[in-house]
């Protein structure tokens, strides 16, 4: 038995270490564990995915911790993927989201994985989607994503999660922040956390005012029944408001199913990811070609512009693909 299939066997047998190793492999863009992303025949295999995003220090990890506590009371198995940034200079990272989730240590139905974004800019790691599929195939009921502390344009979580929760706190900025484009547009649910601090009512009020102006964001089948993002106030550190938050997440999930939006999202997600995989493969091939092929580089430098070399590289990928298709 080679290394790969031994890992697969341990994964199917429910070995946490095999799952952890498989996630490391997808983080390295190693394709050898892709077969594990589909569940064995007849098995369940996709977990519900809720994503938490928001500025640094808004309490995302503490909210995730509180939600895990609630879900465990319901008997659900939960996995968390918590993303933190890597240094663009050294590649190193301090992944510290586990600190807030220590009370779930040693609970075999809770799996927490810290991921470095490794230079990927959307607020998640490039490997997040694959990791979600691995967690689903492993049998987790629920996946919770936590993005890096984001600014205004790290919106990838909305493309990956079924339900996106945007976390805000009092004193983050004035009313103009509320009408800017970006993160506020991707929310399926707003949480105003740290509602024990002064000013939380104002944040909630401004959000409500902004939402009352919203044009429906949904398209296609769902456009006739738009979803109105609720505003939930929480004190995550004291487990307050978490029942209401979960009720909102469930209600959004029912909306996705009944409105037909779930299928739309699933199709869009697959298309997006395919485009990303193509781009990723092309980037790798380009890097290889430019690194190894002296003649190509020479031509490129002579041209002084990238287009001819790019076309040449794309042609090669095309013929490589066709060859493999025949073989």
């Amino acid at each position, binding site marked *: 038995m080679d290394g790969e299939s031994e890992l697969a066997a341990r994964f199917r047998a429910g070995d946490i270490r095999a799952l952890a190793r498989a996630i490391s492999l997808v983080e390295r863009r190693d394709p050898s564990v892709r077969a594990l992303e589909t569940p064995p025949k007849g098995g369940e295999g996709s977990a519900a995915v809720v994503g938490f995003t928001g500025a640094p220090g808004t309490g995302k990890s503490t909210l995730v911790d509180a939600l895990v506590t609630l879900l465990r009371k319901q008997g659900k198995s939960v996995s968390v993927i918590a993303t933190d940034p890597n240094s663009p200079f050294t590649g190193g990272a301090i992944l510290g989201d586990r*600190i807030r989730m220590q009370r779930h240590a040693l609970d075999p139905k809770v799996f927490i994985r810290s991921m470095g974004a490794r230079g990927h800019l959307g607020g998640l790691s490039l490997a997040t989607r694959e990791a979600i599929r691995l967690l689903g195939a492993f049998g987790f009921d629920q996946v919770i994503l936590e993005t890096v502390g984001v600014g205004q344009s790290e919106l990838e979580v909305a493309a990956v999660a079924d339900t996106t929760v945007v976390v805000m706190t009092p004193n983050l900025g004035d009313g103009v922040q509320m009408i800017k484009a970006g993160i506020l547009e991707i929310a399926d649910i707003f949480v105003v956390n740290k509602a024990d601090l002064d000013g939380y009512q104002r944040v909630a009020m401004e959000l409500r005012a902004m939402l009352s102006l919203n044009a429906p964001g949904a398209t296609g089948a769902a456009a006739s029944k738009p979803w109105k993002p609720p505003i939930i106030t929480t004190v995550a550190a004291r487990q307050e408001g978490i029942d209401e938050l979960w009720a909102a997440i469930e209600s959004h999930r029912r909306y996705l199913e009944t409105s037909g939006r779930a299928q739309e999202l699933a199709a869009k997600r697959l298309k997006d990811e395919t485009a990303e995989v193509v781009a990723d493969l092309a980037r790798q091939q380009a890097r*290889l070609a430019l690194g190894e092929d002296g003649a190509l580089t020479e031509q490129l430098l002579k041209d002084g512009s990238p287009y001819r070399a790019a076309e040449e590289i794309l042609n090669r990928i095309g013929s490589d693909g066709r060859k493999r298709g025949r073989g």
Partner: protein
Amino acid sequence: MPVDTAVRPVRILVAKVGLDGHDRGVKVVARALRDAGYEVIYTGLRQTPEMVVDAALQEDAQVIGLSIHSGAHMTLFPAVVQELKRRKATDIVVFGGGIIPEDDIVALKKKGVAELFTPGTPLQEIVDWLRKRFPQGGG
């Protein structure tokens, strides 16, 4: 098609075990490891050996770095090594730091702790040791 596997940072789980709350040292070390290109998973204070090993398995860490300033190092370090044995994960390397007498260092190394660093150790020495141990990855 060849795969780009160039990005392969070594993952190090860093924890404080036992009941002491002196985390300045461990945070400085964590920062130095980050600057050396490692992915450092910091799990915070008051961890039990079982918690540390469980987290290291979930995180697929190749290394566990422990900081102990309570004087309980002769109990806690071997307990982590034992727990790794119990979970069949002895490939994970354990190193540590703290106020540890020379004789204890010798004894702990015999018990399976790979290396121990005492106060005043230059940070570069820790990084150099890790680079030697994991020449294929990290910074």
